[in-house]
C-alpha cells in the first residue's frame, strides 16, 4: 500500500499533468481577478490623481493623457494649501507617539514577559491592559478630550502624541511580552553574574535581541498613528496644526467636486505607509504574525 502510493506519486501521468496545469491555470485566473478587485481602488485613485477633473467627468475610465504631476505640486507647494506643513505635523506626531510607545511597551513587555518577574497580580493586570481593545473608541474620547483641555494641551502635538501612545500600548506591550517570554533565560543569568543591574540587562542584552519585535511594533504603530483620523480632528482644531489625514479630510470636504486634486490628496496621505510597506512588506507581515497569535 505504501509503496503503491509512493510510486504513484512519481509516475508521470500526462493526463494528470494537463489537468494539473489546467487546474492551476484556472485557479490563477480566479485569484488574479480577485486580486485585481482588491487592488482596483488604489489603481483608480492613483490614475485619477494624474488627470484633471474635467477629464474625469467626461470619461471616468480613461487613462491620463500625460503624467501630469501638477495636482501634487499644487497640493504640496501652493501656499494656500501647503500639504507640506501637514506632512510635517503628521511626522512629528507619529514619531513622538512611536517613541513614547516604544519606551513604555518594551519595558512593560519585558516586565510582563520574563518569568522571573512573575507576581500574583501580573495576569489580571495584563488582562486589564488588553480589555481596552474591546471598546469602541468613543468610550474614551469624551473624557480624554476634557482631560487634554484641562491640561491645556489642546491644539498641541502632545495631545495627539499622548493619546495615540496610550491606545497603542495594549497590543504593543502584548507583542513585546510574547517575544520576550520566548527568549532563553541563560542570558539574563549570565549578565546578572557579570554584575549588571536589571535595567542594564534589559538595555544591553535583551533589548537588542528583541529587534524583530521592535521592528514590528514600529511598523505597525507608525501605520496606525499615521492613519488615525478621529482624534486628529477632535483634539486639534487649529488648521495649522492638522495632521495630513485631517487636512485631507477637510480638503476633500471643501473641494470634493475637484476629483482630481482630491484623489491626489488621498494618495499623498497614504504615501508614506505605502512606500514603507512596499520596501519592507515581508518584514511587515512576518513581524505582525510572530507571536501575535497565541490561542
Amino acid at each position, binding site marked *: 500500500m505504501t509503496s503503491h502510493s509512493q510510486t504513484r506519486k512519481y509516475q508521470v501521468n500526462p493526463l494528470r499533468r494537463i489537468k494539473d496545469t489546467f487546474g492551476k491555470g484556472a485557479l490563477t485566473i480566479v485569484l488574479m481577478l480577485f486580486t485585481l478587485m482588491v487592488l482596483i481602488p488604489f489603481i483608480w485613485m492613483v490614475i485619477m490623481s494624474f488627470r484633471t477633473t474635467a477629464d474625469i467627468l467626461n470619461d471616468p475610465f480613461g487613462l491620463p493623457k500625460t503624467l501630469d504631476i501638477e495636482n501634487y505640486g499644487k497640493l504640496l507647494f501652493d501656499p494656500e494649501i501647503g500639504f507640506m506643513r501637514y506632512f510635517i505635523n503628521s511626522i512629528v506626531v507619529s514619531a513622538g507617539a512611536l517613541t513614547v510607545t516604544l519606551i513604555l511597551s518594551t519595558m512593560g513587555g519585558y516586565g510582563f514577559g520574563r518569568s522571573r518577574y512573575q507576581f500574583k497580580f501580573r495576569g489580571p493586570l495584563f*488582562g486589564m491592559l488588553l*480589555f481596552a481593545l474591546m471598546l469602541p473608541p468613543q468610550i474614551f474620547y469624551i473624557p480624554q478630550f476634557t482631560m487634554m483641555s484641562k491640561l491645556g494641551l489642546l491644539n498641541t502635538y502632545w495631545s495627539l502624541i499622548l493619546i495615540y501612545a496610550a491606545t497603542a500600548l495594549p497590543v504593543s506591550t502584548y507583542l513585546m511580552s510574547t517575544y520576550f517570554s520566548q527568549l532563553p533565560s541563560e542570558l539574563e543569568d549570565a549578565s546578572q553574574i557579570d554584575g549588571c543591574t536589571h535595567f542594564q540587562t534589559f538595555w544591553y542584552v535583551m533589548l537588542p535581541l528583541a529587534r524583530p519585535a521592535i521592528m514590528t511594533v514600529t511598523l505597525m504603530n507608525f501605520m496606525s498613528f499615521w492613519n488615525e483620523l478621529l482624534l486628529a*480632528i*477632535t483634539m486639534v482644531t487649529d488648521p495649522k496644526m492638522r495632521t495630513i489625514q485631517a487636512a485631507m479630510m477637510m480638503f476633500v470636504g471643501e473641494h*470634493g467636486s475637484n476629483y482630481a486634486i482630491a484623489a491626489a490628496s488621498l494618495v499623498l496621505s497614504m504615501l508614506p505607509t505605502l512606500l514603507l510597506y512596499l520596501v519592507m512588506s515581508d518584514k511587515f507581515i512576518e513581524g505582525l504574525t510572530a507571536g501575535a497569535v497565541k490561542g
Partner: protein
Amino acid sequence: MLKKLYTLLAVLLIAAFALSACGTPATPQTIIQTVEVPVEVEVTATAEPKAEGGKELIVWWSHWANEPAKKIVIEQIVADYEAENPDVDIVLTWWDKNPLRDAVRSTMTAGGEGAPDITTFDSEVVEWVEAGWLLDLADTIPWDNLDAMAKNDATYPDLGYPGNYKLNLSKTTNMLFYNKDIFTELGITVPDNYQFTQTEFLDVVQKCSDAGYAGVADAIGNRKYMGIYPVQYHLFSLVGPQEFDLYNSGKKAWDSPEAKSVLDYSVALRDAGLWSESYSTMTIDEAHVYFHTQQKACMFYIPTWYTGRAFKALKDGGQDPAWQFGMLRYPAMDGGKANDMVWGGVESGYAVLSTTKHAETAKDIIAFVAQPKYGALWTAVTYSPSIIKYDPVADAPSEEALKAAGVTAGQWDWYWAEYDKVYGGLEVGLAPTARCGDFGNAMDSALADGLPQGLVTVDESVTLINAALCK
C-alpha cells in the same frame, strides 16, 4: 482571568454609580459642577490680555473656504479694521461649515479652551444659544444700517433668549433655475409670468427625465437640507410664510391636509424623475457643477448664495460666465396662498463666543462690518444681495477696489437682469426657523433621505416628523 475582569468591572460600576448618586464634584473635571445658580454669561471688559508685541489678538473662524468672493470681502473688511486699529491683530481662518461647527462644538463643550472669538453662526443652531455660548449682540449691531428683517433673525424669545446673537451680511432669496438650452431642446416653453402650475411643473419634470436628464440637480451628499427644498418651496407657496414657519420649526403637526398634499406632490415629482441618479452621494459643490457645467439637470432649487460657489474661476469649479441660465417662479400650487410670493431668508453670519477674552473688540468688529460701504462691496463682489442697506451710488466700491477683488465689470449683468425680471416686485415672505431638539434630524431623515429615495411612504414620514415635534 475573565472572571477576575468581570469582578473588577462590577466593582467599578458600583463605585461609579455610588459616586454619581452622591453628586461628588470630586473628579478633577472641574468644568463639571452641580450648579444651582445660573452663571452670568456676559463677559465684562476688564483687563484684556494682549498678544505678543502688545497687540490684541482676535481669532476669527469663518465658513466659506470654498467661496472665494466672500473671502475677498471679509479679508478686505479685516484689513480695513486693522488699518484703523493698529493695536488689533485679527487672525482669520477659513473652514467648510460642517467641520467648523464640529470644532466649535467640541471646544465649547470642553470649556472653551482654544475657541475663537468670532465664529460663523447659522440661525438654526439654536442649541448654541441655549448653551449660553454666544454673546448677545442686540446692543452692538447698528440696526439702522440693516434691513428690517435682520432684527427678527437669530432671536429666540420663545426659548427665553430675546436678544440677537448673529450678524447677518446677506439676505437670501430662494430661487428656481432652469437650463434654457435643455428647455429649448425639449420644446418646453416658459409661461409669461415665469410660473408653471402644479400639473405643468410635473409635466416638465416628466419630459426632462424622459429625455435622460434629472429634474433637478439638488443632492444630499454633504448637505441634507437640499433634499428638503422642494417640499419647503411648495409648502411655502401653499400655506404662506407664517404657517410655513410653524411647520418648518416643528411647531405644527404634519398630518394636516395641506402638508400631506405637498408630500404627495413631492412623491409624484420623484416618480416623474425629479432627482438625479447621484442624489445620494453628490456633495453641494458637485451639485452646482452638475447643473452648470455637466448640464445633466433641467432645474435647480437654490438660494442666492449660488453665486458664491458658481461665480468663480472655471478651473476652481465655477461656471462659464457666458452660459446664461433662466429663473422660474415656484410652481403655483393649487389653492396656494403665497403663489405670488418668494421665500426669503438669511445665510451664515457671525457671532461672538462667550469664552472670548476680547469681548469689547470683538463686538466692535461686528459693528464695523455693518457699514453701508461693505453692504455695497458684498453685493458687488459676491453677487449676493446684502442685508446691510447702502446707497447704490454713494457707497459703491471704487473701480480699483473692484479690480483688486477680481470683479470683471458687466460679467454677470445678465444674472441680475433675470433676477429682477422674474423675482422683482414679488413680496418676500420670511420664515425664520428656530428648530428644537431632534426635529431637524427627523426632517432630514424623513424628507431628505426617506421620501426622495423611496425608503418610506408619506404616512411613515409624517409619523417620523410628528414624533419629533417641539414639546
